[in-house]
């Protein structure tokens, strides 16, 4: 025994094999052994020992909503105020885009003005495309929106767009203000940073639950969640962009006699505009992602269409709505990127002395078209609302295609699925599922200690203990299992792709385009084809997670290999390495720190996706969060969400520490 401990703690080479073998033994025979010893608590955390944390959080939330009072106003009044502030512009946007303006309530409502016609909206996006870059972009975004109208997705898409139009400005402005505050007051920055870190690892559903509780099951709650979700990258980009404004520009501002406020708003923020626009682009993409998730809690829109049709297994409809999401994501992404670039490269306007209408020709056109189509729409309804008979639906086509694939290739898909399930997924599941909580915590502590000394050991051990004392150990192990297999497969595909694209320009372009596309897609969309081909279950979830989490594995590996000092590679070539040796002996080891960081990102994405796959029936912590959501049980949701976050934090700290080790070993630090 003491020899075992000595091996585990000192002899580096044997650490992992011995730890693995011991864990395997415990996993396989632990249950029987515990029964023989009459110590069931060793393997199954006794219900009596659970901390009543869930209940306490729920009680605290109740108190907050029912009784909390800040003197001038109660907490409930505060949330109502926020609701009101968001609701007014949101209702306006919905009215303007799709519902029309009405006066009065319910059935007595009288329409006082129609919404913008579909023609006006399309002309507006075309105008923005042309203004931001050129006719090609105009054609692209115009085509995207034409798709929405022709394929009958317009109404849902406009509801989604209304959410985006409200959430993006609020998220961007909020992120900007917090970012500026963090830039100005280092203390605030130090407080904010860990909060942002945590927010990036807590799955969105976890804070959806308390938000639902505070704001009710409606569109405002969805928007609040969306804004909170989309804000952190804007905060980070803002502080980063402000810090990277050249010193001379800041000094110029001071020398000109700017007050502090002038310095921030007239000098620093405009100079940081290109960086800030990157942040806005991220806010848009995250907002779109989240708006779609949030549409399940009352906002409606495209996400709602996808989810309901997926639940009905109506693949055709789901796919059409899914493509509509993708199309919209592409249009918004390209448009915002073009605006960002325009801010960087704008040239002077030769028409400066021309009249107002010529200088603002696009704005005038859009206003004119909007007015004309509104009037014409009163006479010819098709101008106002795209006529139904002219819509095309591809739903039946997709359904047929799926049927065809399933009829003709069922055996192949099934064989593939069964093979992976039997020989990979299930053994891993059995192995991890058998690890008793006591041993698991011990292992996490040991691994933490090995990589980061006692501090990391305390952290990893403590966080695992948190999961156990809340009775979530078995569910956590399922999450770890699904996440683990997905990450292994994503790395097995992604790292070779990354290495390939680092050494081959053509491969780089193809892989790059592929990865870019994957990253523009809201996470939700991945579910559709996967469910279509493999139906619901662990396997389908695993494929969706792999697709979603692939990008960082590729990116970081490519980056790592590309950044190797060329002299190292030349040294290898000169000493006569074959290409394979070059790869295995030089490139991979030197790129290892970056690859580990990529692995880290892959794990984060996989964990966040796992909560989404719970929508189509995977188990584990994601399911727990989802159940809490449907039951509006905030205590349960928060605990489960924190548990996911803690798994993410454990993985993050251990991988970062090992990346640091690797860098130190390679003398890169």
């Amino acid at each position: 025994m003491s020899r075992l401990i000595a091996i585990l703690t000192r002899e580096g080479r044997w650490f992992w094999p011995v730890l693995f073998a011991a864990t395997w033994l415990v996993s396989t025979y632990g249950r029987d052994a515990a029964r023989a010893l009459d110590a069931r608590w060793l393997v199954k955390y006794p219900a009596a020992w659970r901390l009543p944390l869930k209940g306490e959080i729920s009680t605290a939330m109740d108190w907050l909503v029912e009784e909390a009072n800040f003197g001038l106003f109660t907490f409930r009044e505060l949330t109502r105020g926020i609701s009101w502030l968001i609701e007014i512009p949101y209702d306006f946007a919905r009215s303007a885009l799709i519902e029309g303006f009405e006066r009065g309530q319910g059935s007595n409502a009288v329409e006082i003005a129609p919404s913008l016609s579909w023609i006006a909206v399309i002309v507006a996006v075309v105008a923005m495309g042309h203004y931001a870059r050129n006719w090609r972009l105009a054609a692209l975004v115009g085509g995207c929106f034409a798709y929405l109208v022709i394929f009958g997705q317009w109404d849902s898409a406009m509801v989604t767009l209304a959410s985006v139009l409200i959430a993006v400005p609020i998220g961007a402005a909020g992120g900007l203000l917090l970012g500026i505050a963090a830039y100005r007051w280092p203390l605030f920055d130090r407080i904010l940073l860990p909060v942002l870190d945590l927010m990036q690892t807590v799955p969105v559903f976890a804070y959806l639950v308390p938000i639902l509780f505070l704001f009710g099951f409606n569109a405002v709650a969805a928007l609040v969640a969306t804004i909170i979700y989309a804000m952190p990258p804007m905060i980070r980009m803002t502080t980063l962009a402000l810090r990277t404004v050249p010193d001379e520009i800041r000094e110029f501002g001071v020398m000109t006699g700017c007050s502090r406020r002038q310095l921030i708003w007239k000098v620093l923020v405009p100079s940081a505009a290109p960086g800030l626009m990157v942040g806005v682009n991220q806010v848009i993409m995250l907002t779109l992602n989240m708006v779609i998730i949030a549409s399940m809690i009352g906002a409606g829109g495209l996400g709602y269409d996808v989810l309901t049709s997926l639940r009905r297994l109506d693949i055709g409809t789901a796919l059409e709505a899914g493509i509509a999401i993708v199309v919209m994501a592409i249009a918004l992404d390209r448009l915002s990127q073009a605006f960002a670039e325009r801010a960087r490269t704008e040239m002077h306007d030769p028409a400066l002395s021309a009249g107002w209408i010529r200088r603002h020709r696009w704005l005038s056109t859009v206003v004119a078209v909007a007015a004309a189509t509104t009037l014409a729409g009163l006479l010819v309804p098709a101008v106002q609302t795209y006529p139904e008979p002219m819509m095309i639906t591809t739903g039946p086509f997709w359904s047929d295609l799926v049927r065809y694939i399933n009829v003709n290739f069922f055996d192949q898909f099934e064989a593939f699925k069964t093979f992976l399930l039997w020989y990979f997924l299930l053994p891993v599941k059995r192995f991890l599922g058998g690890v008793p909580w006591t041993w698991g915590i011990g292992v996490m502590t040991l691994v933490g200690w090995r990589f980061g000394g006692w501090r990391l050991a305390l952290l990893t051990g403590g966080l695992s203990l948190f999961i156990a004392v809340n009775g979530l150990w078995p569910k956590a192990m399922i999450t770890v299992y699904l996440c683990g297999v997905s990450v292994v497969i994503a790395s097995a595909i992604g790292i070779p792709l990354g290495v390939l694209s680092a050494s081959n320009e053509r491969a780089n372009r193809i892989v790059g385009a592929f990865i870019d596309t994957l990253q523009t897609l809201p996470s939700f969309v991945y579910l559709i084809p996967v469910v279509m081909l493999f139906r619901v279950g662990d396997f389908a979830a695993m494929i969706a997670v792999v697709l979603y989490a692939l990008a960082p594995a590729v990116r970081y590996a490519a980056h790592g290999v590309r950044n190797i000092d060329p002299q190292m590679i030349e040294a290898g070539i000169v000493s006569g390495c074959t290409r394979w040796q070059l790869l295995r002996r030089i490139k991979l080891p030197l790129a290892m720190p970056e690859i580990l960081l990529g692995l880290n990102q892959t794990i984060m994405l996989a964990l966040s996706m796992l909560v989404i796959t719970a929508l189509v029936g995977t188990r584990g912590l994601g399911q727990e969060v989802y159940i809490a959501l449907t039951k509006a049980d905030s205590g349960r949701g928060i605990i489960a969400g924190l548990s996911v976050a803690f798994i993410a934090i454990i993985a993050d700290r251990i991988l970062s520490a090992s990346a640091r080790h690797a860098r130190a070993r390679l003398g890169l630090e």
Partner: protein
Amino acid sequence: MEKPVKLDCRNVWKLYGDAADGFLDNRTSEPTAEEIHAAGLIGAVRNANVRIHDGEIFVIMGLSGSGKSTLVRCLARLIEPTAGEVLFEGRDLLRMAEKELIEIRRKKMGMVFQHFALLPHLTVLENVAFPLEIQGIGRAEREARAREVIELVGLAGREAYYPRELSGGQQQRVGIARSLAVGPELWFLDEPFSALDPLIRREMQDEFLRLQALLHKTIVFITHDFDEAIRLADRIAIMQDGVIIQVATPEQLVLSPASEYVAEFTRHIPRAKVLSARTLMRAGPVDGATAGEVAASDRIEDIAARVVASELPFGVVDGAAGVIGSIGRQAVIEVLAGIQHRP
């Protein structure tokens, strides 16, 4: 008849490092470079003393990393010196309240930066008008004033351009126009021409001299280029490792460098560029005929052609004092030929 002192910098120190703050307190003697280094500090500026007079071009010259930028930023209080006083028109900038400092910067100081520091989102006109906008001056007035200065630096017609559409030289003209828009009395320029190509740099130096002849500002000009310093300066301060090792006119620097280090800079400088008629002349009343007169402050380079072409010597005139000596062909030729002259 020295002009009044505009900016007086007394015992200014700037140390970088964690322990910088208390380091200079309670010391009887000045810390040496070794002591500073041993304390883990960087002595970016060490005990700097300079007095800058009204209307002069004061150049601070030193190699990269010698502390020029740090010193000029201390003079403008863009960074807080570790110790010392900076008196602007007799009042200590370092003890001044923020409000008053802002007022002085708005009305009395201007600064030009090495990398131009133009605001990328503003046009040329808006950039130049920016300092006026900060003061709350209305659009019509500030744009009219900005147009005047743009005209002055020769950029008329480019008002609507963005900085990225201009060449480096043009961008620095915008930087200069912008710093002049408020009509400052004290003008800081931190290596304004160092980022430009040599040809453009010469052109900009001429432009700078032309502007100064027109405007008579008090100027603190930073450069690492000794030729530039010689060309522009009324007086030069040479910096080395954070210390000002000599303050003198270009001529004095060349004739009596304070150290081997300074002498190294001056070695390749043609004497004709720095020596004045006063230095070279034979003092005393002129007897016999002269070919004409030159001013005592004229540099040999500028009068050489005339003097060499004539057989007769020229009288040297010093303003009110009248003729104070004479200068002949022989002396000028020796200088031009690089023959070492008596100091």
